[in-house]
């Protein structure tokens, strides 16, 4: 029985909740138990936002992720706030184009990807979230890669169907990214 607790944190508008929903749907499509809990309130309108996602083979107890096995930090305040909450052996992913420091902990696995930079270079404005998610999938195997397309179909609304391929491509960029 395994349980993975994921915390995605950053600014409002970075697609934190969307990335979490994608992850939760991928878990659901595998037949796992999942929960998704957003921060809500004024922080969503430009301040810090975060999203707790739990994927488990057992029933999910508390949906609140206090000690993430996987932390995705999309800005510096998020890394400052949550770095010390991760248990030893956790994986911390940092958008290195927005966070100008390294992970200080030595008992965790730290990964750096300039997701926002890559997103801009590709002419995408807002796909850093999915590029990061791709990197997370490659390094942790949190969801199998064959779940990417089916989960994306669930979370990209019909109204934005044109963005489906772009999102999948962004995940692929994150998977293929090689850290220096």
């Amino acid at each position: 029985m395994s349980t993975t607790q994921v915390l995605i944190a950053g600014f409002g508008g970075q697609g934190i909740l969307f990335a979490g929903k994608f992850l939760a749907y991928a878990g659901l499509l595998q037949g796992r138990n999942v929960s998704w809990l957003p921060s809500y309130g004024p922080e969503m309108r430009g301040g810090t936002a975060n999203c707790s996602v739990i994927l488990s083979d057992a029933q999910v107890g508390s949906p609140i992720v206090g000690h993430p096995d996987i932390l995705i930090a999309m800005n510096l305040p998020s890394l400052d706030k949550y770095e010390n909450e991760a248990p030893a052996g956790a994986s911390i992913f940092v958008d290195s184009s927005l966070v100008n420091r390294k992970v200080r902990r030595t008992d965790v696995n730290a990964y750096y990807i300039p997701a926002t930079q890559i997103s801009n270079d590709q002419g995408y404005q807002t796909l850093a979230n999915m590029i990061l998610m791709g990197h997370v999938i490659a390094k942790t195997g949190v969801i199998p890669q064959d779940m990417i397309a089916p989960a994306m179909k669930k979370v990209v609304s019909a109204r934005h169907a044109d963005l489906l391929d772009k999102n999948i491509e962004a995940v692929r960029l994150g998977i293929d990214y090689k850290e220096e």
Partner: protein
Amino acid sequence: MAEKILMKGNEALAEAAIMAGCRHYFGYPITPQTEVAAYMSRRMPKIGGCFLQAESEIAAINMVIGAAAAGKRAMTSSSSPGISLKSEGISYMAGCDLPALIVNVQRGGPGLGGIQPSQSDYFQATRGGGHGDYHLLVLAPSSVQEMADLVFKGFDLAEKYRMPCMLLADGTMGQMMEPVELTERTGDPAPKPWALTGTEGKRRPNIINSLALEPAELEKWNEERFQRYDIVREKEQMSESYRMEDAEICVVAFGIAARVAQNAIDAAREKGIKAGMIRPITLWPFPEKALKAAAEQCKSFISVELNMGQMIEDVRLAIECKRPVSLCCRTGGMIPSPDEVLAAIERAAEGGK
């Protein structure tokens, strides 16, 4: 079997209400339940239902009274300060013996308070909330699936006993997404011979009223209502037991608190502490029978709540103070961590408070 989909608790309860035949929703927006109204505003016009954003909470609850008096499945939803505004109308509904569903997705109080999750309206919900001698049926979901399932149950019970029913959730339950399976079901609507549907000249007019100036008459109404409440107390208590088989310490928690407590109980069990949980699903009627039975087995009780200690009174009453009951709580929109609940369990295991 319907496909499992990810839904927010607020949306799942709204869709469940529509499936249960509710075609009349009256509301006024407030965080953290606005998704209920947003969902209803999208869906109701497509299915011939009525979504109406009223000019105030007081107007909304009075519209519910009207629709319920006409025999329709009607509902409203709000969050704590909005429920206080609706309490006058809820008292009138109790006095008129009208069934309806009232959803409270609680936030921190008192006053305008905050917008983060809370369970501090426990007293208000379980004691009635408005003026006068009355109770509501109070159901407490602890998952998105239950947010949906208890809507069906709530409408059915409300109609069976002619009582308003409150679904008492909190910001977490409203905002979180979990897989939910929504299966079309008719529920069990009770006949409504009392409803104001027009006599067509074939029967005497029905009267729905809560005014009785003659004290003996009002006393009789209230006594008859409480006879019904006795039946509800006897037949409708609902709770779920978690790892209670050999438990020596019984955690009592509902809603999000029960989800947190579940982690703490698992952690306590790993440390060899025999902890279990009774999770009330009906807060009124409170599951006294399950608690009383647990008092025969357990050495102590812990009430875990998102308030300064409200349900703890019902725990003590249910077990007739036969065992010590301690409190583990956070308030104001804070949620106890599993570690905090575990610490409370460890203290209880050592015989302390």
